[in-house]
């Protein structure tokens, strides 16, 4: 998977939230084989000394700061700038949320933030609705990849609109497309990959599994399997049966 010229051998990007313990998070990260993890930016608590959450991450992991929790382009841009200053990375997973119940993205604010951040030299990875026209607009604005949702964040519903992902893949063959949000279990990740995604980003599906490390392994294998199936090229679907054995020479 290539993001802005940087190659990652794992096609899985995972989150760092909702785990029951740091140990559990670490073992899930390790099992997933992911090389990139996403983290959120928040105010430092002033009333207690807090240890650095980042110390619990394997230092070999690429950290991808996100703008989760932002509802305006302005807040997302401020958050991205702070993250870059603290981490010395130009990567940012841009999220501008439009609604609390669905956590659907505000495409207009997302685009506005993307334009500003690209101009400032950020490698922008935007979360957006699974819409081809928005995907094209974000790429034209200079985003390094497109990150369409599969289903609402944290819903675990799986790919709700496979046709849209397939259309985006076919119409934007050169874009790096990472399915972001909505995956619930391994088969969902495999489907996203079979539709031609270059990678999948997930958090809840692993963190809220009963055994996160096992689910992380399952996701890793599903993503590999789905990718192979996509590259292999599936057989066409047919309505009726087609015998696999020769029709001649059957005993009578």
């Amino acid at each position: 998977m290539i993001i802005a010229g940087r190659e990652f051998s794992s096609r899985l990007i995972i989150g760092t939230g909702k785990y029951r313990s740091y140990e559990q998070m670490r073992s899930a990260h390790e099992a997933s084989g992911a090389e990139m993890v996403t983290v959120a930016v928040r105010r430092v608590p002033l009333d207690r000394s807090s240890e650095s959450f980042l110390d619990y991450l394997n230092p070999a992991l690429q950290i991808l700061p996100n703008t989760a929790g932002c509802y305006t382009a302005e807040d997302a841009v401020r958050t991205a700038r702070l993250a870059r200053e603290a981490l010395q990375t130009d990567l940012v997973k841009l999220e501008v949320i439009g609604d609390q119940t669905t956590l659907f993205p505000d495409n207009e604010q997302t685009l506005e933030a993307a334009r500003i951040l690209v101009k400032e030299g950020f490698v922008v990875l935007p979360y957006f609705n699974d819409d081809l026209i928005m995907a094209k607009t974000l790429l034209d604005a200079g985003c390094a990849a497109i990150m369409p949702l599969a289903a609402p964040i944290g819903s675990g519903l799986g790919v709700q609109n496979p046709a849209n992902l397939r259309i985006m893949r076919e119409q934007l063959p050169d874009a790096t497309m990472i399915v972001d949000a909505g995956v619930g279990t391994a088969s969902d990740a495999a489907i996203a990959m079979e539709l031609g995604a270059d990678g999948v980003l997930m958090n809840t599906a692993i963190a809220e599994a009963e055994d996160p490390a096992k689910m992380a392994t399952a996701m890793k294998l599903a993503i590999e399997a789905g990718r192979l199936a996509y590259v292999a090229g599936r057989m066409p679907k047919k309505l009726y049966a087609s015998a696999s054995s020769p029709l001649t020479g059957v005993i009578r």
Partner: protein
Amino acid sequence: MKVYVNGEARNFNGTPSLAELIEQLNLPVARIAIELNREVVRRSDWGSTMLKDEDRIEIVHFVGGGKN
């Protein structure tokens, strides 16, 4: 002098620099970032950035999170 740190009003004697503010608040300095009146202040400038009355400071760090 009164400034707002992460939305909370805080009183300080004199005019501390950002670096002194961090020290007085007893915050860990590794991998945090600071915004003064909505503009990021680079780490190398913390010592030379003097605070003024009514300044608004945001100090952030990183937490576990995937989405929202």
